[in-house]
């Protein structure tokens, strides 16, 4: 029993990180109805921005969140207002192609500036653990979980309590009605993408502190994000959190029972099972 506790705890903690990775993808799909294929690259762009600040200012990577998040907000805002808003309402393919193009541009930009070397955001945290009996909890994983949870709960409160948050929800409910009350939906979408990029920035710093990254690592996290939102249901914040837990838990329990080689496979098996039983995800709208 006790040896099961370790992967379950790790799964729970990793799930919090997965959820915050997926959060931006999920909100943008729910609000703008665009599948942002560049989401993973925005996460990794966040990692590299953090790296740049670490090298330049000698900061602890964790503190760089405060700088990277607002910068990524502006990046997201610009991407939406200058690029995506031009192709909305012109069918599924144009925004998809645009996202794909942004993905390629970001990857090659990072390659150009940072070379293809493996990078990591180093801090003392990565070595620290808390021991509870026979269970070891990585302090970094715990931190990922707590920050991830804070971002998710913060976003939820933002959507519920603020005027802009309510306007974003209104526009995602019925865009025509939102226009009729006087909302400029293009600018609402730009804010929404800014917020999604902000969550991607937080995810990027945490990912960078936890794993090694390269300029082309983005799609790997896009796939994780897809897994999470498919399990949890697109556009649902609660679903994103639960989806993160399920995917991470499935991966780590799979690795525990069948060996590390089966970690990814087990995650995707659970994904397929959820798709078969609830095609819209656990908290998705029918």
């Amino acid at each position: 029993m006790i040896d099961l506790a370790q992967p379950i705890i790790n799964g729970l903690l990793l799930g919090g990180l997965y959820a915050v990775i997926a959060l931006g993808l999920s909100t943008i799909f729910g609000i703008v109805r665009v599948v942002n294929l560049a989401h993973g690259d925005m996460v990794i762009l966040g990692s590299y921005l953090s790296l740049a600040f670490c090298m330049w200012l000698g900061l602890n990577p964790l503190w760089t969140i405060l700088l990277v998040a607002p910068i990524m907000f502006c990046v997201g805002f610009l991407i939406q207002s200058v690029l995506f808003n031009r192709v909305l309402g012109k069918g599924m393919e144009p925004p998809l192609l645009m996202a794909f193009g942004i993905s390629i541009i970001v990857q090659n930009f990072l390659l150009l500036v940072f070379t293809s070397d493996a990078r990591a955001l180093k801090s003392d945290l990565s070595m620290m653990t808390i021991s509870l009996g026979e269970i070891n909890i990585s302090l970094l994983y715990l931190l990922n979980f707590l920050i991830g949870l804070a971002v998710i709960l913060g976003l939820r409160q933002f959507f519920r309590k603020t005027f802009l948050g309510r306007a974003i929800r209104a526009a995602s409910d019925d865009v025509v009605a939102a226009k009729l009350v006087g909302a400029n939906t293009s600018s609402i979408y730009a804010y929404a993408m800014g917020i999604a990029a902000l969550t991607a920035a937080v995810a990027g710093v945490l990912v960078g502190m936890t794993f090694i990254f390269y300029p082309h690592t983005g799609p790997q996290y896009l796939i994780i994000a897809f897994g999470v939102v498919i399990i949890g249901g697109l556009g649902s914040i609660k679903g994103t959190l639960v989806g993160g837990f399920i995917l991470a838990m499935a991966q780590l329990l799979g690795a525990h029972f069948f060996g590390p080689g089966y970690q990814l496979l087990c995650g995707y098996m659970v994904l397929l099972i959820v798709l078969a039983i609830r095609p819209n995800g656990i908290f998705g709208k029918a």
Partner: protein
Amino acid sequence: MQRELALKVDNINVFYGEFHALWDVSLEVEPQQIISVIGTNGSGKSTLLNAIAGLLQPRGGDVELFGEKISGMQPHQTVVRGVSLVPEGRRVFGRLTVYENLIMGAYTPRARKRRSTVLRMVYDLFPRLHERRNQLASTMSGGEQQMLAIGRALMSEPKLLLCDEISLGLAPLIIKDIYKKLEEINRQGVAILLVEQDINRSLKACQYAHVMLEGKVVLSGNPASLTLEEVKRAYFGV
């Protein structure tokens, strides 16, 4: 001096791609008036309201609000100037509460400043909305949602209220109640342009009526001078 018009629609033409939906449509609404447009499904009534509100852009012709040209503007610009549309099918924000729906109605900066005052007025007009203020809009009955859609439209303090098929799918008693409220809103100084399929109901409420058929105004007059026979013939195009 020329009398001031709340709304002047002057020979507008609207297209959906190649399809010519409105042909040289003209009409006028005076302040304090209720004007109705009657027509079957697909006669162009909703198109007309959408073009006035700015959801559709007319190709040729002018729309003026209190003398200011508003054709070519986007909805968020017409709302600021005092146009508010209660859309067909109500289109309340289903996953927002009643209160949040009303708050969204006061979206423009001017309306946001006067939000609490206007909110109280809307609650006075529709006490039911106050009772249900914390309920999700999607969980309300059709009649309540229609009240909410009207209440939301009033939150921007419009000078001109456009109502698209507000009786659709509602029980006769509720329709009667909602029309009473419309007259009350009108008495408070809001000009109303009504679009309906229900001939009797809308003739009773208005001071002047237009009948539309296939994108054209085919008959106009005040309800007293129009015979039901005439209206029916124009309505069905026979």
